[in-house]
């Protein structure tokens, strides 16, 4: 595990970003996706990132998730500067501290639901019976224990997103980053999923950041950050 970060961090500010700018260069053209963004994401809170398409939400989420490097600025994860880390060190940081939930679920279709979770646990060093037991516990937590051995193709969209949530929280990362987690779901299922994510923030003291266009999620948010043209237009 990376030496630059503690195994588990306890700061209230899970992620702090300072003066983040991101340019996408393509030939002679340069597109400014983020322009001097400052933001702190706290544990125990659900933070919604909202804004029109092209406002920089997904870029910001990618930078917070250490998937994308900013053009300039700092990203602090648990108080440590991850922008100073080598590229090769970042996967270990993501694996240990961040769980991802994707709009399209991104489950491995060739693995069963439980194996999807076991794979993540395996990457984190939890293997064998221990991994199976932990996967079973997480499936019970997200309410789909009966789908343990099902393949993703054989379960509904809502159940897939629950598997994705179980996978995201496997190994207890402090931060959950979700990109439009309800976009592919009906309103009832979407509501259940967001309630579940809110519970992860409030009951398990995680920082949950959700990128969404869905105004119905606002009632579950502790904080709403609205982006426009790569800048924070509103933080409430």
């Amino acid at each position, binding site marked *: 595990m990376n030496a630059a970060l503690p195994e588990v961090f306890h700061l209230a500010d899970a992620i702090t970003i300072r003066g983040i700018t991101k340019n996408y260069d393509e030939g002679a053209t340069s597109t400014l996706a983020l322009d001097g963004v400052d933001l702190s994401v706290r544990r125990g809170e659900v933070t919604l990132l909202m804004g029109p398409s092209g406002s920089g939400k*997904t*870029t910001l*989420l*990618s930078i917070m*998730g250490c*998937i*994308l490097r900013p053009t300039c600025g700092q990203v602090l994860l648990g108080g440590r500067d991850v922008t100073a880390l080598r590229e090769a060190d*970042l*996967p*270990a*940081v*993501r*694996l*240990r501290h*961040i769980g*991802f939930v*994707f*709009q*399209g679920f*991104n489950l*491995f*279709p*060739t*693995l069963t639901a439980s*194996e999807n979770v*076991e*794979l*993540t646990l*395996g*990457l984190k060093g939890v*293997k064998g019976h221990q991994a199976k037991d932990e996967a079973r516990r997480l499936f019970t937590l997200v309410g789909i224990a009966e789908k343990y051995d099902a393949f993703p193709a054989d379960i509904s969209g809502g159940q897939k997103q629950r598997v994705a949530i179980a996978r995201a929280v496997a190994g207890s990362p402090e931060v959950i980053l979700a*990109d*439009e987690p309800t*976009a*592919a779901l009906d309103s009832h299922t979407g509501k259940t999923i967001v309630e579940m994510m809110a519970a992860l923030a409030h009951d398990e003291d995680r920082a949950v950041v959700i*990128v969404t266009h869905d105004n119905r999620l606002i009632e579950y948010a502790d904080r709403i950050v609205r982006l426009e043209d790569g800048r924070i237009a509103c933080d409430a």
Partner: protein
Amino acid sequence: MPPLARRNLFHDRIRLAVTLTGIAFSVVLMVVQWGLFEGFSSSTTGIIDHSHADLWIAAKNTTYLEQAIPFNERKYYQVLATPGVGHAIKYIVRWSYWKEPNGHTETIAVVGCDPDSFMGGPYNLVAGDAQQLKQPNAIIIDRMYANKLDAHAIGDMVEVNGFRAKVVGFTDGIRAFTTSPYVFTTFKRALDFTVIDDDQTNFILVKAAPGVDIGQLKAELQRRLPDNVVFKTAEFSASTRHYWMFTTGAGIAVLMAAALGLIVGIAVVAQTIYATTMDHIREYGTLKAMGAPNRYVLGVIMQQAAIAAVLGYAIGMAVSVFVVHGASKGGANILLSWQTAIGLFFLTLGMCASAAVVSVKKILSLDPATVFKS
């Protein structure tokens, strides 16, 4: 850990069938094309390679088996008198004519040998033996050419260059590179069959005495026979093969076909594995986003390629054995040696790994934003 590579490969049976078919097809293509080349190549030198001689002596400027012109047999006695020579025989390989009972004529290559010598005689005998050549008018032919020569059984009578000849044995698998089959007989009878004077020969085959350095013996014989050329057997084989493979259009055509077979095979395997890997690019992107180390992603992709390579190779090789067997019954000479089989295994493995590496490069340079798109 769940076996992601194996599952990726076996989960979609149709995709798996397409992948394995692609690899197996490539293996069969490479076996057939390379086997034709090897068969073609080896048939030019079969007589030399099976001669059990250490040295071949021919007329000066001879570069290949069928080119040799007769020279005086006095040289034979000079050879016998050379220290270090253990055993030597006069030998003939020369074109002649075969007349079937129905009057049809075929061109043949007469091989005149000494039935009592272990050098240069008929090999792979399936009926009769070399000693039978001591019978009057005796000849031995390969059963592959029985129909062509219209001689199907021991005792069949034919005519060679106007002389009566009786079939006393059959070999198996002694192919002629040209369309003219080899016909074994005694040296003395071969003189008649090929119209060579009684005091001439067109080769001398030499076996060195035990413990004698063949290189030194060759040099000594060359010194004593300045009007002849002395080859080690391997050198004469290489020289003959080189002549037929590289100075005639036929050899180059087969070589190009073999090269083309390899290139097409490589392209098919590469494309197949690349497509199989790219089918799962979204999952690899997800793995990377989740924080799986590159070595894990690389391991999954390589494992997937290796399993596909081994299975595709096994299927392809099984089909190839049938193809080679069937082709030999049909008269085609496709050689599948164990060296070729092993070489193709590693080539297939290497091709699959290389194709996977190309897709890995693409995966490792994935735009991270792609994992956040539905």
